[in-house]
């Protein structure tokens, strides 16, 4: 009787260890915040080089829905989904200094993927893959503005992510 009473808590403790999260929640939050801040700084530097006229507004949020704009953050899945889309965009752009941001995004995705695995979250494919491909194909000759648009929206998403780091705790 007493043996079983002791056994169950022990089993539960063992299970919790087995399914333990490799990266502590706060550690991941700090790591994601650091990476997001880094990406934001890089984007700011990159877009500042264009020295665009201050009144210029390239791409309304309602235009080009293929590139996520102001997408809500609802758990790890949505974060992964959005970042994957941005990564695809960057991947299709010509080589250059944006490559570093692409690498940063890949690293961030890696951390999030690990987190999803540890939380047993199911990942899904981005829904607008074909539309995104078509968009990138159509605008392949205007990659400067496409890159500006994508990076600007990525920056906004990173800023949103920083204030919604608690969403990393849910799938």
């Amino acid at each position, binding site marked *: 009787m007493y043996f079983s009473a002791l056994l169950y808590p022990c089993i539960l403790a063992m299970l919790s260890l087995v399914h333990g999260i490799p990266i502590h929640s706060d550690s991941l939050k700090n790591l994601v915040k650091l990476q997001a801040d880094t990406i934001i700084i890089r984007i700011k530097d990159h877009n500042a080089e264009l020295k665009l006229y201050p009144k210029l507004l*390239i791409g309304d949020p309602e235009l080009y829905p293929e590139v996520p704009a102001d997408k809500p953050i609802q758990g790890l899945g949505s974060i992964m989904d959005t970042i994957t889309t941005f990564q695809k965009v960057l991947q299709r752009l010509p080589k250059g200094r944006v490559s570093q941001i692409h690498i940063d995004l890949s690293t961030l995705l890696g951390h999030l993927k690990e987190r999803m695995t540890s939380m047993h979250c199911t990942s899904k494919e981005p829904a607008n893959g074909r539309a995104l491909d078509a968009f990138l194909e159509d605008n392949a000759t*205007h990659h400067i*503005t496409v890159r500006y648009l994508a990076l600007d929206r990525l920056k906004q998403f990173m800023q949103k992510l920083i204030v919604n780091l608690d969403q990393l705790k849910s799938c």
Partner: protein
Amino acid sequence: MLALLVNFITISQGLAALSPSDGRGGIYEDLKWKALLCCELPFAQTLDDGLSEHPPVGQCQLLNATKPESSSKSPTLSGNCLDILCWLEGEQTNLICNAKSHRAAAAASLFAVRPQLVVQMNVLSDEANHAAQCAGEDTAMCSISLHGNDATVSLNISISLNGSTALSPKMQVSTHHLRRPEPPVNLHYNVTTEGEVIFRWSDAQPNSDAINFEIRYASNSSLQQWEVVKVKGRSWVSLNELSSGIRYMVQVRCQSHINYWSEWSQPFYFTLGVSYIPAEIFTTPGSEVTIYAVFHNRSWSASKAVWMLNGQVKIPESQYRVINEQVSAVTVTVDEPGFDTLMCCHQWGERFKCIIAYAKIYTEGMFNADFTCQSKNSEVDTMSCEWNKSAWAQVRLLYRQYTSMCETISEMEGSEEAEENMECPSGAGDHRECTLRNLSLFSCYKIWLEVEGGRGKVRSFPVYVAPIDYVKPSPPSVLEATTLPNKILSVSWSRPRLPVYDMQYELRFVALREMANTQWKVIGPLLEPQAEIQLKESCIQFKVEVRCRRLNGSGYWSDWSMSYTSVVYNSKAPEMGPDFWRVIEEHPVRSVTNVTLIIKQPVLAGDPYSCVEGLVIEHRASGRAVWSNETTLAQFHSFQWRKEAHTVTVMSRNALGISTQNRNMTLSHQPKRRCVRSFSAVANSSCVYLSWSLLSDHPVPQSFVIEWLDLKKDPEQDVSLTERLQWVRVQSASRDLSLCRRFYGSEEFTLYPVFVDGEGEPVRYTATRGDPAAYILLLIIAFLSVVLFVTLLMSQNQMRKLMWKDVPNPNKCSWAKGMDFRQINTIENLFPHSEGLTACPLLLVSESICEVEIIEKTHPVTLEHEQDNEVPIYKSGNKTATDSALLADSSEPLSLEASTAAATPETSGQSSVTYSTVLRSDQPSLLRKQQESLSSSSDEGNFSANNSEISGSFPGGLWDLENHVCSDSANPRHSSSYNSVEEFSETSDQDYEASESTGVAKDLYYLEVNEEEEEEDEEEIEETQSEQENNEIVMKVDARPLLEGKKSTAVDSSVSHSIPLYLPQFRTECINPP
């Protein structure tokens, strides 16, 4: 046995020989060729046919395949008909033909035994050089490979029955008509400069006979709702119903002349936003370029177009042109070769909305890329080049290696020695730098940029670089530095092994203790890898760094080497430990006492052969516990004290040992002995003199420590107590001390007697001193006050003289003869006309000789206006400033013209009388002035400033406006008191006459004030009302003759100017309120 032989012979004759609609005996239907062949066989002869040498030959006829029933009922050909069918199979590479007799179908249905019909078919294709032959009873099927090409295939059929044979006429099948037409290809769209969107396509095959087309489109999200447009006879169509911002899918198909529709073409996706015509353009520097932009968004208007060059510069609107509502054009001239972009945006409030499309302008020629290269000679030679370019341009860095020197490279341009172009490993992109590896430092490299998409016509000027000239060497290594006792810093280092050319060096150093505000001192260039630097002090550790570069020729300085801290050379251990004091802080919460040692620093400069490199702090607690800490030359050292006897010793140390003469401090919690009898401090502006005396029967302390807090350091700025505490140690024999530094005068000095076994009871004294600056300031203020007061008095006198010089002296008036104004206390005394005073105390009867006349204009009988009229006269002196201010606000200010005099002929003899004219003002503000004046009637007024300066004390309120309403004058000694300070200077008659001759119509108020009262009045300026009443300032006016000479009647203002102007004339108008 009846035998029937059918032979098919197919001969290819080419495509051109056959009309598409004419299947030469057959028809094309549903991608098949069909024919009906009926043959007449000499049936009767067939019985003996086997013995015949030449079998009989029948006749065959191709009937209309579309009506086989009627044909098969032909009486002559019945029973020997064949259905022939040809089609393509196997991805349309094989032609299949099948011939089937009607007899076969009949036999199957009747189960009757009939003679066999043998069908033989020959198929021949010349293009494919293939032939096929097949035979069978009642049916035959042949297949021939065409290798995917169209061909015209000939076929022959022979049928045999019972020895009789019949041959078919020539039949031809065009495989072209057995296929669907290929769908059109190369579907795309153009936008015209008028804004039309035109879709175009091409036929898949060059000789396509397609005439009719259909184009369909739908938005990508709703592919079920196609819009279909039919096109005939042309391969383009204009679609103008498309919306912007929607992603469309569009397809096209064609119809052959035999009505076969092709499949739909490959989908073409597009989204309309802003189209540029042309989308990219090549031009030359200085040429004009015109670009059109079509707004597909109908809500955007070309009149609101804004063109941007490279997204940075707004092109002036003068260069725009509105083609129509949706099309704008701009003409620009690009002067420099390179790459530029144009964006046409739409003005939206303050901002410009743009989409991501832009037009590209390639200006042919060479641009300056401003290359900067830097090479590195190490295990793998590398060279990194940076350049400037437009942020919008994607570039490729190309380079070419030459084996000769760069100086001669221009002559070798295009020679065989040059190797082929190579490209930066990073490829095309928006790079701004590229690192080339595995290159030879001693080669010459030609480097240039090409703008991606510029077709090689837009490129930068090439630069010719010999990497050896741009080497940034590795920094020197193996630094060694020693601070020697002879005040020399000796430094040596090793140069990098590569590159091998001669080097020059720069050295920089800074004292280690000054690292907080690092000010490097740089020495160089040095030609040897060593240096000796003369110092001002010994015993100081330095941080040293070195860098190098090529001695002769170009190149870059290396980075600074790793820092190296110099070693201080010592020949012996230090002798003395530093002096120190302590700060004891008790933590109220944790019950912990922190002790911080404040260590004097002069130990640094000591014997150059025994420099101090650090400290050793030794603790001895009760119970003989001993421990020590080794620190650097710190100024503070903290530890926790447990309130037990604790002895601390601070020792100096260097590499050779620790000091032997050290100071101890014993901390004890026991009651402290008292040995100081007195302690005092005297401070002046810069020094504090401290003195003390000891009790006679106590042992003399080992030393004294005087501490105080530096008030200059603000505790609110996180300056700790330890940093604020100042202290000085005094020898035991001293009984006084002079501290000269900046003191604030409120420091508290504490004197600690220090004994061998601990501290004695401290004594405190606060040195206070006044701030001399404050005293000086106070003196200055007092002095200025006096000066101001005197100035005011003098100016007042001057003003009075100026203002009153024209006022007549009442003593000179006839009515005032014999009057002593000092003794007149009441108005009754002055003007004993009781009824007049009762009715209207201010109403005085004009005296024929001299009168003061107060004349008021008649106004609508409102009380306030009446008051207004009288106000100027009754202002009290210390209200002047206020009133003046009020007057200043008034649009019609009250004015008093002292020089405007009026006199009657009767008074002409009084040549010493002048007049003051008081001009009335109807401004409402005067009412306020009056009220203020009245309410502060205790003031002894000077009527100054711009107005009359009427002074004098008028008992009974002669001019008291509270009486102007002719109410009771019960208080004859009303509070108004007017100082008479001005002398009545008497002026000439000319003024008087002049005034009269001009017929001055102004209201005149003549006041007479005794000049003798002047000085008294001045003294009474600040006195209170009660004082005024007692301090009589008497106006010497004899009212009696005045009242006797004139009846006490009100004087209408309308006749005021005609009143004989006897002075003084006091006249007021009394208006009873309704």
